[in-house]
C-alpha cells in the first residue's frame, strides 16, 4: 500500500540522484496526445516509456506530450530527440515497440528503422 511517508523516502533517494544529473542535456521523448493520439492508444505508450526508463534507471530522459503531429492515421506518434542528432519520428507505436525503442535507440543508439515514419510511408 502506497503511503505519504513513502514519498519522503522517494524524495531523499531521488534528490541525491537529481544533483548528479544537473546541467546535462538529455534525450527527449515526445508523444502526440491530441484526440487522434489518445484514441489510437498514446496513453499506454507514454506510460510504457515512463516505466521502461524507470526500470532501467536511465538518467537525463524526459518523457512528455505534444498536440496533434498532423498525420493522425499514423498515431500514436513518438518523436525522439537525442542531443546532437536528428529527430527520429516513430509511428503506430505500441507499448511493446516503446520498450524496443528504449533499448535499441535510447540506450544503444541504434534507430529502430522499421518503426520510423520513413519506413511506414514507403
Amino acid at each position, binding site marked *: *500500500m*502506497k503511503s*505519504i511517508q*513513502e*514519498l*519522503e523516502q*522517494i*524524495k531523499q*533517494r*531521488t*534528490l541525491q540522484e*537529481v544533483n548528479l544529473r544537473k546541467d546535462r542535456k538529455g534525450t527527449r521523448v515526445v508523444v502526440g*496526445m*491530441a*484526440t487522434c493520439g*489518445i*484514441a489510437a492508444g498514446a*496513453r*499506454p505508450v*507514454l*506510460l510504457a516509456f*515512463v*516505466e521502461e*526508463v*524507470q526500470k532501467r534507471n536511465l538518467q537525463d530522459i524526459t*518523457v*512528455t*506530450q505534444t*498536440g496533434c503531429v498532423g498525420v493522425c492515421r499514423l498515431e500514436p506518434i513518438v518523436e525522439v530527440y537525442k542531443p546532437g542528432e536528428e529527430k527520429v519520428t516513430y509511428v503506430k507505436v505500441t507499448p511493446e515497440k516503446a520498450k524496443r525503442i528504449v533499448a535499441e535507440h535510447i540506450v544503444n543508439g541504434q534507430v529502430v528503422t522499421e518503426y520510423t515514419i520513413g519506413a511506414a510511408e514507403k
Partner: protein
Amino acid sequence: MEDISLHVLDIIQNSISAGASCVDIAIKEIPADHSLYVMISDNGTGMDSSEAERSLDPFYTTRTTRRVGLGLPLFKAQAEASGGSLEIDTEKGRGTTVMARFDTRSIDCLPLGRMEDTMATLILCHPDIEFRYTHSYYDKCFEFSTQDIKGKLGDLLISDLSVIGWIRKYISENIEKLYGGVASEVDSGT
C-alpha cells in the same frame, strides 16, 4: 475512445490550451441511481456563449481555435449513447466546467477505465498545473491534489518519474479501496 478516463485526458487538453493553472476532476458514482458523473472544471480563458455552442459541433474546427474539435463532441456522443447527457458551463475570463452523466445501466455505457493513468500522464506532462482529483462512491470519497504532494516534495519535481510511479499506484490503490477492494485491510483499527 475505449473508456471514460481517456475522454477525461482528452477534454483536459482543452483546459491546458485555454491556459488553465488549476484543473479539478471529479468522478461521482451512485450505482443505486445508475449514475456516473464526470466533472472537469478549469480556470482557463473560458468561452462566450457562441464559442461554447460551436465547441460541441464536430465540424467546427479551425487551426486558430484548436481547443475546439472532436474532443467535446465525442465525449457528448458517448454520454448520450448511454442515455446520459453533457453540459458546459463557461464564461469568458472565468473558466469552463464540463459535466457529463453516464447511465451505467446501458450496454453502451463506457467503463471508467484507469483514472490513475490519466492523472499520472497529466501530472507528468504538465507539472506546473495544479490538478485536484475527487472520486466518490456512495458516501466514500478519495481526494488527491498535486498542491498537497508538492508541499511534501520540497525541491524534488512532481514530474520526476519515481514520483509519477508512486502517484499512479497511490491513486489506483485508493480507488480500489473506495470499491471495498483488497487494499482496505491495511487500515489499522478498522
